[in-house]
């Protein structure tokens, strides 16, 4: 067959993960910021702004997890055991947060429990995702087609740093989302949070970027040798551009700009990680072709994916279109 199915699937999965990170990122971010909001009024409004879309956003996670099992079984069978604790923690965080969403709006006496569960679950999920990312960047020990490391390999200063970076980064997405979707005092409050988390995000991205090339000679080679080295100029420049747009958007009160600029930051960082990884699926030893299932399985599934992905995209776009514009504080959650 002329098409490199493994590469096509790597592209599709990369897209699903990116879609998950930017979409669920802002609603997790709203959860992370939740305790900083002033009163129940602000909190209700913030929740309402993500209520119609949050569960659709998590569709992409299932697609990413299920897809990894089906098309890159070796990656699935090594990454899951290696990142056991962070992944289970993430799932529990997401479950808790999901039910808090549903029950908080209808609860009265037990509301305090869901008021803890919503931000708590969001922070745990975001932190665990960041740790998982950091652990993957550091590399996973694979021997004889199985995970060969220990139970706490994922826990290092670097992975804690990436965990913190993702929490702050999601908070930035959440804050700029609120700037875009709300008005009045809540939007002003969100602008102040966006400024703080914006600075925080850039400092943490800077730290992570400085450390990453020295974790693995392959990364160093990738970023500082011609011709790929050109990206070590381009990506940071584009990042700074996004930072500038974010800043100006907040100052000039163009409410959609900060959110779009923050999305740009995430997309650029993601591209940076892809540049570091390619062609590895599980650094530092398993390439995407080694991890891939046989072509017949990949082809069997591609048919389904080509039908499904456009439908999910259309459905997602429609959901966002229906709920476009500022959230009306007069409309209740339920």
């Amino acid at each position: 067959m002329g098409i490199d199915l493994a590469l096509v699937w790597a592209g599709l999965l990369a897209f699903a993960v990116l879609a998950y990170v930017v979409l669920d990122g802002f609603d997790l971010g709203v959860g992370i910021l939740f305790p900083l909001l002033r009163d129940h009024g602000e909190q209700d409004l913030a929740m309402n702004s993500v209520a119609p879309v949050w569960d659709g956003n998590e569709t992409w996670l299932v697609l990413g997890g299920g897809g990894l099992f089906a098309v890159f079984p070796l990656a699935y069978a090594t990454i899951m055991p290696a990142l056991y604790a962070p992944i289970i923690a993430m799932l529990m965080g997401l479950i808790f947060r999901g039910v808090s969403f549903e029950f908080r709006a209808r609860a009265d006496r037990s509301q305090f429990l869901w008021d803890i569960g919503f931000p708590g679950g969001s922070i745990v999920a975001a932190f665990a995702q960041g740790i998982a990312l950091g652990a993957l960047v550091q590399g996973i020990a694979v021997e004889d087609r199985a995970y060969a490391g220990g139970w706490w390999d994922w826990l290092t200063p670097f992975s804690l740093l990436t965990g913190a970076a993702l929490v702050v980064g999601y908070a930035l997405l959440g804050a700029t989302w609120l700037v875009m979707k709300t008005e009045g005092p809540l939007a002003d409050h969100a602008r102040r949070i966006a400024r703080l988390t914006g600075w925080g995000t850039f400092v943490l991205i800077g730290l992570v970027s400085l450390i990453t090339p020295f974790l693995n000679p392959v990364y160093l080679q990738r970023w500082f040798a011609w011709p790929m080295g050109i990206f070590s100029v381009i990506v940071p420049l584009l990042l700074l551009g996004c930072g500038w747009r974010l800043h100006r958007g907040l100052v000039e009160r163009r409410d959609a700009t900060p959110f779009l600029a923050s999305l740009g930051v995430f997309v650029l960082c993601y591209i940076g990680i892809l540049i570091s990884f390619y062609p590895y699926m599980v650094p530092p030893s398993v390439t995407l072709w080694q991890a891939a299932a046989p072509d017949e399985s990949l082809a069997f599934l591609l048919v389904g994916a080509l039908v499904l992905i456009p439908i999910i995209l259309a459905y997602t776009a429609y959901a966002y279109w229906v709920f476009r514009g500022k959230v009306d504080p007069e409309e209740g959650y339920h």
Partner: protein
Amino acid sequence: MELDPLLLSRIQFAFVVSFHAIFPVFTIGLAAYIAVLEGLLFRTRDPAWERLSKFWTKVFAVVFGMGVVSGIVMAFQFGTNWSNFSYATANFLGPVLSYEVVTAFFLEATFLGVLLFGRDKVPQGVHLFAAIMVAVGTFISSFWILAANSWMQTPAGVELQNGLFQMTSWSEAIFNSSFPYRFSHMVVASFLTGSFVVAGVSAWYLLKGRETALNRRALSMCLWLILFVAPLQMFIGDLHGLNTLKEQPTKLAAMEGHWESKAGAPLILFAIPDSASETNHLEIGIPKLGSLILKHDVDGVVPGLKDVPADERPPVGPTFWSFRVMVGIGVLMIAVGFWGAWLRFRGRLYDQPLFKRVLVAMIPAPFIAVLAGWFVTEIGRAPWLVYGQMTHAEGLTPSLTGGMALFTLIGFIVVYSVVFAAGLYYLLRIVRTGIEEVEAQDEHPEQHRAKRPFSAADVPLEGGDGAPATAR
């Protein structure tokens, strides 16, 4: 004490999958019921059907949401605890489970939105179509899941090469030998679950004297279904058992409590199987009936557990007793069906309070029967994960430690208990609030905003005194 990661992982998977299974088994049946109600509404234009459908759609939304939440975990659990198994079986199970996700999202997510929120926004025909598509979607989902499970029970269409199952035939793998029985057994179980829940809730409303005309209709429908489907389920179960006899004789021997392979075997009704001494205590059985049922011949030879070495036998006690719980509840369901038919024949279907109370008490029964049935088939195939080819021990994540498995097991129990308690409490509230209140809230359409399953059920989680305002 040394913590055994294998045992703990099996308990963990059993816990998560059992917790998950009770939601879809209900939603599959309920989705079909709602589609029937919508069909009746479309044909007769009788608003009574619409009122029933609206109420049960709200219940459906909550149960469906809990099913989705608990199901996500399983997409990851294969890899975390059973990485060798995942890797070895990925060529078949990966695509099959992915297609389950594809159909679930495609049919359910898209059409569920229309079913829940589109009643007054789309033409009635389109709404009916959405209801049918949601029901079809739940069937297709279970088709894939049962194809995957049946393949693990009776593997086919694959060849084991270098520790990897390579596909030789997709159709043989999907339509493997136990699949037709397992799939039909499960679908009919879903119908029974749906009808027993609806019948029980309707009977409860009738006992309270609420919405009598409407609930009589619902009760009558369910009882017709139970009358025919409960015996049908017994018949399918028998066919399934014969397939197990052929494909997994050791499991069958454990279900029947037979240690020795012999002709003219009894049907054991009660016993305490003892794996250490390879015998039963306090055995009560009907002579020759076991052979008659299994071989359709009083002197037929049925297999015994001692045909295989001790380390290839499943835990006999749990398999034996789960099977008896399942069959016992099945017999009870048939009896309820006949009781209802008899009362109907006498023209007293709605006059017998005891019958209604029994129906209310039967609400949990189908769930217990379904779980017991899964226990039989899953425990009964031990020690095999892929029958005859890969054991549980071989499929386990090699690096997994007992401590980690225990820690996450406790985590799952805590999180799921909170979710389950809150969800169940909420469902009870919806039921207590009742059909009347649900309609009163529909008078305020501005309350509907978020287009998501739970927001279809506009009942507060807690109420002042917890008593329904409309319990008149």
